[in-house]
């Protein structure tokens, strides 16, 4: 554990607050009066997934921890957990609840290498690569002569049933790139 000034925190840093590990999602530094400054922090509790906002003086000392991380691949799901495996074939069970934001990207036999984060030896979160590729299971065809001016339409991904907005030219069976941080369509492969 190390001490870091609140003004130096960046997104991705993990700090201990009231005994809980919180990952900084966004740190917004602002000068207040005279030469003081405050930092608004948007943080996620790594144990509960709860997101909260707080404001601290920039010179406030925070307890930063460096969490263990391992590269893993998805193995299978056994509700209420998802199972991941590392390069040494160690298996890790992660509560589906804590993966709520990224569960939609899971699919059988997926080859994406994810990053599993551990707090006190317990796996607490999964981070997908910034960009993943998925197949479109269903999307409405563009109607010939449609002059409504719509440039996007809804599409459902294969396996996950996750629905997102894609460009009008995307068709069923197309592979598309998805930004896992925003959940948005990037482009057709």
């Amino acid at each position: 554990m190390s001490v870091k000034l609140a003004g130096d925190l960046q997104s991705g840093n993990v700090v201990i607050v009231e005994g809980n590990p919180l990952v900084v999602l966004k740190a917004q530094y602002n000068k207040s009066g005279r030469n003081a400054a405050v930092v608004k922090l948007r943080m996620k509790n790594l144990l509960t997934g709860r997101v909260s906002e707080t404001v601290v003086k920039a010179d406030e000392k925070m307890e930063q921890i460096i969490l263990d991380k391992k590269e893993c691949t998805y193995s299978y799901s056994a509700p209420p957990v998802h199972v991941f495996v590392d390069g040494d074939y160690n298996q890790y069970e992660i509560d589906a609840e804590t993966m709520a934001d990224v569960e939609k990207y899971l699919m059988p036999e997926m080859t994406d290498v994810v990053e599993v984060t551990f707090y006190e030896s317990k796996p607490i979160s999964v981070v997908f690569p910034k960009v993943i590729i998925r197949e479109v299971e269903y999307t409405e065809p563009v109607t010939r002569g449609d002059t409504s001016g719509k440039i996007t339409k809804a599409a459902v991904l294969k396996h996950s049933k996750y629905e997102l907005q894609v460009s009008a030219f995307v068709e069923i069976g197309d592979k598309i790139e998805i930004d896992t941080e925003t959940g948005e369509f990037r482009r057709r492969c």
Partner: protein
Amino acid sequence: MADRWDIFCRVIDNYGDIGVCWRLSRQLHHELGIPVRLWIDRLEVLTHLCPQVRTNLGSQQVDGIEICQWESCSEETQPARVVIEAFACEIPNCYQSSLLSLHESVPNPPVVWINLEYLSAEDWVSECHGLATPGSSSSLRKYFFFPGFTTETGGLLKEAGLREQVLRYQQEFISQGSRATPDLWARLCSKQGENPLPDSQKMPGELRISLFCYQNPRIPQLLDYWSSRSAPTSLFVTHGLATNQVAKWCGHPLKAGDRLQIGALELLILPFLPPSAYDELLWSCDFNFVRGEDSFVRAQWANRPLIWQIYPQEEAAHHKKLEAFLSLYLGEFSNREAVAEFWRLWNQIPPDRSWANASGIEDAWEKLIHFRQEWNRHSEEWADRLDRKGNLANNLEMFVRKIREETSRS
């Protein structure tokens, strides 16, 4: 009886910190019936605002407020259940420990700990207002309360009836054709404000200006210009830095009570004015040059055009703050560019376009004078708009109640 509130104030420089805390204390006590204990590290500064204060007393009762020397705070001090640290001043460690013990041993009514922040018009203020800093080892959190100009912030300090008082005073002025400058000056110099209203009137075409500022290299240029204009300018020069800089321009020392005519410019050197007399000065002038936070707010309640010298910050952070306020204050005002130009010049902030192309402060001043009446009306509308957003003391009291309700529920 309401819980007592403790307000902690450290005087960093000047009178702004204690000016705000003293005003807040009085308003909480006189208007909301809250017993207030004000902790201050430099009592001698408060004596300027409130001459009844004695610097040799560890604790004293003045105007209904218990005033305590910061150093007299100890382990034996019984903390209040509502604690305000003004401008992030950090309450003493011993007090903090006692506060924590009180919070843990007697949870009801909940302890509320607030950091009253600096005033800023920037957008981020409304996003941070009311948020809490988590306690490192306990559930006692410190809430950030930001004054501001929008309903999403804590508002501005304003005593009950202030707007009506200003309007009455200014209407009286208008009905009399405005009070004569020498009479106003004599009245302000008497400090007590007890002189009878004079019969004489302000000179036709005379511009009456008050000057309260930090160090400002633009002052000589403006004084040169005002002294060379054909129309008369009466400049009320406040005590301290303003007088010192004007004296430097004159080339000889000046003291309170001095009156000098230099060309078209009449200099009226003021003593240190207590808050009520300073308010009267602001209400009486055509233009008010103000600085920092407290006088800046008072000038906005004065219905008169103001020129603000912002507190300078490292890395020019104050530039953004000035622009943020200008944007709110000027809104759709038809002469916004001219006002903004003058404010930037006064604060030595380069405008968007090339600094070299910017007009001199003399030209910028002439532009302001042309639309003085519109700016006057705009100032009244601005004060009305601020008035509708409530006031800081009431908002603070409501905030404390809200936090207590939330804490009790959780």
